């Protein structure tokens, strides 16, 4: 049975769950538990909250599985549930008011292609980002995590966050700029300046 599960796609498994094959959901949890946990930790920065959050994400996914359209990709659908659930957790903890309107979503923005195609550079960038994610607000942290750590496309992130595709690009660029600025500031604080003669 397990052997045959490996050959099934996420969407086929989800369709099976919709038809009442509950045990197929175990395979979906198996496939996504680590990914959602990683996403939750980068989102919440608290292991216990992340664990509770992930559990709630899968329970919500199971409860609402019949709303999933099996002709579309499963992972953005699951990340959408995770986004909503983790955002709720964060709001409860931080008592953040829900912003009704984000000016970034108002106007069109040109999407700049990502320049980090070199794999070594990308790896270094990821490490650097990972160490400094806590310095970013949720608004900028989330698209960065989904793009660089969860390897999702702009279009998929747009579907998860339900924001324009161009806004995804804007937020990722702003997040990178903020990290760069932060790094430069911390360098200035620790490194003695070279005095030119």
């Amino acid at each position, binding site marked *: 049975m*397990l052997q045959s599960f490996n050959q099934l796609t996420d969407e086929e498994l989800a369709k099976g*769950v*919709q038809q009442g094959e*509950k045990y197929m*959901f*175990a395979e979906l*949890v*198996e496939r996504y*538990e680590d990914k959602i*946990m990683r996403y939750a930790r980068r989102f919440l920065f608290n292991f216990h909250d992340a*664990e509770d959050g*992930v*559990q709630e994400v*899968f*329970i919500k996914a*199971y*409860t*609402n*599985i*019949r*709303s999933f359209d099996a002709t579309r990709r499963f992972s953005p659908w699951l990340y959408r549930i995770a986004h909503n659930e983790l955002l709720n957790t964060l709001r409860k903890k931080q008592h953040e008011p829900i912003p009704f309107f984000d000016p970034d*979503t*108002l*106007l*069109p*923005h040109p999407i700049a292609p990502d320049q980090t195609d070199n794999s070594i550079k990308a790896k270094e960038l990821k490490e650097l980002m990972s160490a400094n994610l806590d310095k970013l607000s949720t608004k900028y942290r989330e698209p960065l995590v989904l793009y660089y750590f969860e390897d999702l496309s702009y*279009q998929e992130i*747009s*579907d998860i966050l*339900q*924001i*324009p*595709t*161009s*806004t995804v690009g804007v937020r990722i660029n702003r997040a990178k700029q903020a990290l760069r600025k932060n790094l430069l500031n911390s360098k200035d604080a620790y490194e003695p300046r070279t005095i030119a003669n």
Partner: protein
Amino acid sequence: MNPEPSPIKAKILAAIDSGKVKMRPRWHFILQTSLIIVGVALIALALLFLISFIIFSLRNTGAWFAPSFGYRGIGVFLASLPWLLIGLTVIFVVLLEILVKKYSFAYRQPLLYSALALVLIVTIGGVAIAQTPFHRGVMRQTFERHLPIAEPFYRGGGMMGPGLIHAGSIEEITANGFILSSRQGEDLNIITSPETQFPGGYDLIEGDLIVVMGERSDGTVKAFGVREIKAMPGEFIPRHQFPQRFRPPLPR
């Protein structure tokens, strides 16, 4: 041998097996989607009705033509706009935008684009309905049957203006102007002077449909502007067999 499931996975599967967590039935989601679709349809219909009614009212009262009388006319036009209905229209547009933003065709676009597209669609639809005899027919039915909410709605037209606009047809040419048979069914004595503006020209005869701008005192209006207008869709204008021609007032 199966590897030990993670504590999270074990808890989730236990909750499912024990029946604590259940799948929502498919009809729940179908009902949810249907309600959204019905909501979108109702709001869109309300918007089409409101926009077409605003245009109809502006044309029916003559306020639509006020800007052709210069700055004073523009002021009268702005003061005559049904701001309450316009405010209601804006609220409905925002509600519609919130509902359609749940779908990828809307949220993938910048808010400006989706909102503009929405406004454009309902405005075109509203203008198209205003070109039909729909509102005139409803208004006639409303007046004949004295329908409780609709009658004051159509009679007032939502207008809030200072009462400077008078639309109707020329009943009779007089020595210093003409008698206007207003759309409200009143006969008004219109007095023209050399200062009166005629942006559409002086070529007026009995039976012509016109709009007069001026302050009313009892049944008399001192006109600061007069212009001919076209009949509303579905409007019948009785023509005089031998109409008298209007003579412009001579400068003093």
